């Protein structure tokens, strides 16, 4: 069964550094998402992406964050200048349609540790 893959599985970075988290969504999917989960907390929506542009974003997704689908297969999340509070699991997800009969398919996440 096709799956969403994320790399790396674990990223350690120093505060103030830029990080890029990578995802390969399922190939025929059209909608792409990033979520994060701080340890012990809920899975929080960051951003949705469709037709090469952001369709919705949360308050968390400020100017330090950006997303890109550079080559038609990868979907990336960039954090320009990481803060300690960015430490979390970051999940990529994709879905085939925007609504109805269209669950999210998640990758297994990148654990980001900011020191």
């Amino acid at each position: 069964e096709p799956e969403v893959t994320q790399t790396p599985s674990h990223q350690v970075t120093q505060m103030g550094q830029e990080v890029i988290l990578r995802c390969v969504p399922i190939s025929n999917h059209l909608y792409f998402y990033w979520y994060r989960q701080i340890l012990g907390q809920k899975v929080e929506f960051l951003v949705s992406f469709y037709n090469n542009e952001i369709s919705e974003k949360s308050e968390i997704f400020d100017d330090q964050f950006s997303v890109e689908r550079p080559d038609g297969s990868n979907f990336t999340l960039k954090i320009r200048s990481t803060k300690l509070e960015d430490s979390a699991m970051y999940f990529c997800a994709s879905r085939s349609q925007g609504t109805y009969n269209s669950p999210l398919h998640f990758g297994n996440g990148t654990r980001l540790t900011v020191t």
Partner: protein
Amino acid sequence: SQKIEQNSEALNIQEGKTATLTCNYTNYSPAYLQWYRQDPGRGPVFLLLIRENEKEKRKERLKVTFDTTLKQSLFHITASQPADSATYLCALESGGYQKVTFGIGTKLQVIP
């Protein structure tokens, strides 16, 4: 503001019993509701989707009910097994039908 409420306390049940998890929501008018399973250190995995015009949905040992008047969904696992131990997340969609929001999840522990 919109809220999705799940009992964040762990639910411990004996193997073979039926587990019932609750999801309540406010300030949503969802066309459907989804349930996901999350294991430690892994991404959520879709289990079931129920539409607003469906009262009940079943899949193997899983059953979901959806009461739009009470603004509540119940998720049942019958004949529970230790392998069912995980956190179960309720999810709703809002806005332009692309923002899927999750509840905090209920951790289920099935005791052999």
